[in-house]
């Protein structure tokens, strides 16, 4: 069976080396620039006419804007307006990464844990630093919920701290595992199709079945791409809410 893990290999296109650190322009960087290019062209072309009664493309980008705006407003509140550019950028980056990965022969940069972990840990760091800067030591009251008998605090506080530290890990692993598993499934069924063709005339006819399954899987992956981008962005909003007001 062909190796479905080969599609995740990062290959340098322009090898660069600065002071012993490998900063080559890789296929991952190429597709990141492609996703920036696509969103740039999409938003510029759609808003070119700035019509009061929008055409179809302008409706599409206005729907993206409104979805993220409602997400930020309903999760963080009116103070969350300052985080809107960050959440919008994260949403479009993850969305374009997931969607462009569905093009045949492309590369899904969100299927690498290093990319998703970098995003998650930056958000986690931002929450901790901004929270400590705005609320001071009172930020640590996040780990001591109100209404708990004092005798339980030595058990509850470590559990709360561990579940707080688990947040960036689950945040990044969710997106990474979804993308990686989806693409492995696609590659496995494609391998079935190729393997069936080599078995003879009956095999050539039967090899249409994995292709049909693949078509259904790509439809499912499209849904998962959109959903995972939405989940990543809304979880970033929920984590950022802790900088605005201390919950519990």
């Amino acid at each position, binding site marked *: 069976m062909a190796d479905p*893990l080969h599609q995740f290999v990062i290959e340098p296109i322009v090898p660069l080396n600065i002071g012993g650190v490998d900063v080559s322009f890789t296929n991952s960087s190429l597709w990141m620039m492609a996703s920036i290019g696509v969103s740039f062209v999409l938003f510029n072309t759609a808003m070119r006419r700035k019509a009061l009664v929008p055409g179809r493309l302008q409706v599409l980008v206005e729907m993206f804007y409104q979805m993220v705006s409602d997400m930020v407003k309903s999760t963080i509140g009116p103070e969350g307006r300052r985080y809107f550019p960050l959440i919008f950028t994260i949403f479009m980056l993850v969305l374009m990464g997931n969607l462009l990965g569905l093009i045949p022969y492309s590369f899904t940069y969100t299927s690498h844990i290093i990319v998703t972990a970098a995003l998650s840990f930056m958000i986690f760091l931002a929450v901790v630093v901004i929270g400590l800067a705005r609320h001071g030591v009172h930020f640590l009251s996040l780990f001591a919920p109100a209404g708990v008998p004092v005798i339980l605090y030595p058990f509850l506080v470590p559990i709360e701290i561990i579940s707080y530290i688990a947040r960036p890990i689950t945040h990044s692993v969710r997106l990474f595992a979804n993308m990686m598993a989806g693409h492995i499934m696609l590659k496995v069924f494609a391998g079935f199709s190729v393997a069936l063709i080599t078995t003879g005339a009956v095999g050539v006819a039967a090899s249409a079945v994995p292709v049909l399954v693949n078509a259904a899987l790509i439809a499912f992956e499209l849904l998962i791409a959109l959903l995972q981008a939405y*989940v990543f962005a809304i979880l970033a909003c929920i984590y950022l809410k802790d900088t605005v007001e201390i919950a519990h």
Partner: protein
Amino acid sequence: MEVEAMKLLASALVLLPLMGVGIGLGLIFAAYNLAVGRNPNASDVLEKKFWLTFAFVEMFGLVTIVAWALLFFTA
């Protein structure tokens, strides 16, 4: 037992948690369908939460699939 056989056995056993994922997904769909069935206006409130919880439970299923792939396809 040889390493190759243990690897294949481990890659099969790692798929067992998918039972729990299937049950969890069924519970989520059942709760959403029951709620919308009794009160169709509830779909406005519940739709986004439904997709959110689906993604959370699906994550464990997909982490299991990633673990299977890493065990099955590596030397």
